[in-house]
């Protein structure tokens, strides 16, 4: 049976471990708060023991420092007894840094590919989530089954680094979709429109977006739509803004979204769900909170 070694931290990593453990033998190096514990997985305490005799090594951290430390660790693949020297980076890294790591690690015979997961709701992973793969096509085919065990939709974006770049593109537009939906819905509500009417009409008109399709009915029914956090989104948008600055792309709206998410994360706490952005718009627009009558 295929054995996967995964080093990581955070909620997305915990989800990835749970998904993989349904199908594979999984060895886990927890570089975070211990939340990666999962029934049926084996815990290890070093990078060298993580990679020993495993078929695939994966990385999925919510901390850039932890990711960088692992990628720079001389213990990674140290034993030389891993069945494969392919490292699948499922963290959200900077695309250019990923390219530099790929160059450095290739000198040690290690092939790094990037395969970050974009999702807003892990409970509905099959609906509008995807893994963006950056790396050679033959490597993708060799790890495709493992990736589809996490998320059925895998999109090949190009060479190494393009997976991370694509996820920043997607995360930025997804964040804009949601923030635009909140501010426009607040304007409509303050001008007398019913949330249920907006959910019906806007989603059948040119205002449609993925967030309006999920958020407006959820606001009308006072239910949640997501389990990712404000901190994660703010971090993604900071990376996207940095990439825009580096490459000379203005991104006025996405930069505004970055600021809004940072402010919301500071106000509500970075571990708050992105659904709580609705509270910001309700307060800032003078709307009654859901259920307040």
């Amino acid at each position, binding site marked *: 049976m295929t054995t996967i070694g995964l080093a990581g931290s955070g909620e997305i990593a915990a989800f990835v471990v749970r998904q993989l453990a349904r199908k594979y033998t999984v060895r886990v190096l927890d570089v975070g708060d211990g939340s990666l514990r999962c029934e049926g997985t084996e815990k290890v305490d070093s990078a060298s023991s993580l990679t020993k005799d495993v078929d695939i090594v994966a990385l999925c951290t919510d901390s850039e420092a932890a990711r960088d430390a692992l990628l720079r660790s001389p213990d990674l693949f140290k034993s030389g007894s891993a069945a494969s020297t392919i490292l699948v980076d499922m963290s959200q890294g900077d*695309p*250019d840094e990923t390219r530099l790591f790929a160059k450095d690690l290739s000198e040690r015979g290690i092939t790094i590919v990037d395969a970050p997961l*974009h999702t*807003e709701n892990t409970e509905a992973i099959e609906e*509008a989530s*995807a893994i*963006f793969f950056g790396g050679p096509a033959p490597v993708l085919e060799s790890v495709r089954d493992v990736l589809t065990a996490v998320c059925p939709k895998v*999109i090949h*974006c*190009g060479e190494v680094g*393009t997976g991370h*770049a*694509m996820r920043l*593109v*997607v995360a*930025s*537009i997804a964040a*804009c*979709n949601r*923030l*635009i*939906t909140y*501010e*426009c819905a*607040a*304007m*409509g509500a*303050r*001008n007398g*429109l019913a949330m249920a*009417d*907006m959910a*019906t*009409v*806007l989603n*059948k*008109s*040119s*205002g*449609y*977006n*993925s967030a309006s399709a999920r958020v407006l009915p959820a606001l009308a029914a006072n239910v949640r739509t997501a389990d990712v956090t404000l901190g994660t989104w703010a971090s993604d948008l900071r990376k*996207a803004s940095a*990439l*825009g600055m*580096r*490459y*000379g*792309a*203005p*991104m*006025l*709206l*996405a930069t*505004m*979204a970055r*600021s*809004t998410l940072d402010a919301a994360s500071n106000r509500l706490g970075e571990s708050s769900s992105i659904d709580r952005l609705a509270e910001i718009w309700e307060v*800032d*627009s003078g709307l009654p909170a859901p259920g307040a009558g």
Partner: protein
Amino acid sequence: MRIGYIGLGAMGGALARHLIGKFPLSVFDLNQKAVDSFVELGATAAATPAELGRNSDVVLLCLPRSSDVQAVLFGPNGLAEGLSTGKIVVDQTSGVPAETRDFARQLEEMGVPLFDAPVSGAMATAIAGTISIIASGPHTAFQTVLPVLQAISPNVFHCGERVGNGQTMKTVNNMMNVSCRLATLEVVAMGRKFGLPLQAMTEAINATTARNYTSQGMLPAIAEGRQSTKFWLALQVKDIHQAISLAAEQKVPMPIGGAARSILQIGLNTLGKDAQLEQMIGVIESMADTKFVGTSTNAETGDAK
């Protein structure tokens, strides 16, 4: 039911065309060529809005602005002069909700109900008869006119008894559409500068929570070299100014919408009053110094700025 239609511009003309042969139709427009084209198809030309009102049971208006509606309704030889109790006026203009409510109050005194029924969608959907019609106002009048609206498109919504809600809904829709459109284009421009192909981004965006009306319509059209919108940029700017005004009146912050308005204004100032919305694609490209289709990206030449 005798129908009158005032305003045979690009949108009004496309909507009114669906009524030919289904109802006795009178038309009025300042553009004689537009009127003649309807007469050739069997419609009757009215000399003035007042005459059109006298010869119609239901009158629909589709004009550029609420100020035009005011002039057509209450100006010399205006529609109001030809109206009488029991007739109904439907305003399909992308107008200002408060002004439309004021028009409705004035006509109500004459026993004439007015409700708003603006449309939302691309010109192609108006021509195809699938455009969204967003109505609001007195339910009885709406039900009377519903067969007429359904002759234009089966996609008719009624957003409550309050006149103007339809126009507010359309304004919200316009704001969401424009903001998502510009956000999508500017982020995709960043992706192009990194070296991501447009087709790959389109696939990724549409597979995920990043998808929106623009990613599903405009991005594939750009890749295929075809046009996906046909709308005056100046009118789009007008619509967005109206959205920002509605927000400001109710003290609702719209940081992203405000930035989107500014980008559109830059586009209009740069391109001139005859520009089309479609030309904003080139504005976003020039702002990022890249091309959505082609190879002139920083990454492809190995340079980050």
